[in-house]
């Protein structure tokens, strides 16, 4: 049961409130205010929710007679109760494609959501969208079309590593699976070595050359 909710920013009447899973059994309330699928963090604190309610992430409009802040607190409290409307998601059993894709998404520490990364890197949603469009940031989208940004592409200052940017420019694609496999699959140079591991070992130029050679093939 959530005990403390710190409302970070005022909520507009037009915003749709979303409760998003942050990690494990923690949720954060955010708002969806445009059609781009981006989010704005509303609660500064992550709310702990008991396990078993992980799947219950939804958006609702504000009812009459309550402030937006009250609504957030009530809905977060409500998440701890079992739901009939949103039964736990059933994962397909023995799904190699799903397993493979999930392993790519979870690789090297996982990814930040748009809202998380905006907050961490102090960047606007528009700037982030521009980076995706210009192939200067690695991302993947989930089933709902929300973007996530793999942590392995950033330096400690949350800037995209230069060699990662160069390779993204070479690939020039929005096929996020292709981008992730290009960086993570150990198929570059000697056996067992990936482009990302080469970049992390200070051999970024070699990684770029290897990817360029692959892309140049007719």
């Amino acid at each position, binding site marked *: 049961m959530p005990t403390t909710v710190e409302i970070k920013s005022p909520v507009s009447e037009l915003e749709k409130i979303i409760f998003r899973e942050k990690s494990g059994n923690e949720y954060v309330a955010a708002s969806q205010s445009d059609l781009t699928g981006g989010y704005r963090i509303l609660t500064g604190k992550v709310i702990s929710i008991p396990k078993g309610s992980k799947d219950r992430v939804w958006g609702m409009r504000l009812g009459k007679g309550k402030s937006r802040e009250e609504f957030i607190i009530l809905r977060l409290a409500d998440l701890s109760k079992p739901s009939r409307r949103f039964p736990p998601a059933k994962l397909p059993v023995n799904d190699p494609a799903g397993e493979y894709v*999930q392993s790519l998404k979870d690789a090297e520490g996982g990814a930040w959501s748009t809202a998380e990364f905006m907050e961490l890197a102090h960047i606007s949603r528009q700037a982030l969208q521009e980076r995706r469009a210009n192939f200067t940031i690695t991302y993947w989208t989930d089933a709902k079309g929300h973007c996530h940004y793999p942590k392995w592409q950033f330096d400690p200052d949350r800037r995209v590593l230069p060699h990662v940017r160069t390779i993204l420019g070479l690939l020039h694609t929005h096929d996020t699976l292709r981008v992730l496999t290009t960086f993570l699959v150990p*198929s570059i140079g000697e056996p067992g070595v990936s482009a990302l591991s080469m970049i992390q070992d200070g051999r970024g130029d070699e990684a770029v050359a290897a990817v360029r050679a692959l892309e140049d093939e007719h």
Partner: protein
Amino acid sequence: MKLWPPYVRSKMSTEPSDGCQAPSVALRVDGALAQYVVPTTASVVWRIHSLNEKTGRAFAPVYFSRKEGSRWDFKSNSKHPYSDGVLCLGKTFEATMIETFAKKWPSVLAPTRPDAKPYETGRVLTPDDCTRKSATPLHLPAGLRLFDLTAPAAMNSVGYGLDAWLTATKAYHFTRSWSRWFFQCSDIDGLIYSSRPGGAQMTNYVLFSRPGLKGKLRAEAGQTRQLGQWRSLLRNASVVLNFTILAPLPKVAADE
């Protein structure tokens, strides 16, 4: 995840040495070597080719490369478009698939760890692979004379011992020198070789740009379609080569 298919690893060294350099022009493909030159029978072969990013259409399937992009295409200084170059084809759809995509898949020579993640060992085709690559069936004319590098000890007959080495090494500057030698020092039309990643069961052809061959291949080329459009062939190949298709395939396939 699916398991790797058995991998045929060459017993020969993959390290180049001076003895692996192609011989001088004085030695010709005749005598002992001539017995390994086999005539082709008319058959369907496959070619996978890329998308031209500028036009958004697939490149022409019949293209004799001269830019040192693969094992056999030696660089040519000639400006004449038909002077020299090589065209690589797969005997089967699977053979051309493994030649095209194996370099993007995890190396089979990598040490396997029990805790390896699926992406470290699995083979996949992404949506881009299915849309940015196209496949075209081509008719291989009968009567072409190809040197069969898959024949046991073909090159041993002249004391080179290079059969496995030529198809296993990554020292492409040596293999290209041999390709150039075959092109310049004989009248054969190309080579037959086993795929390095696919092993002996995957056979490929290298055709040299002999006069008239390009026109003949172009005239009898089948329809070019995006790779994903060859749905049933792709599904069969995914079983044979153990890869997973991560792209939605069309409801109506070109090959059904």
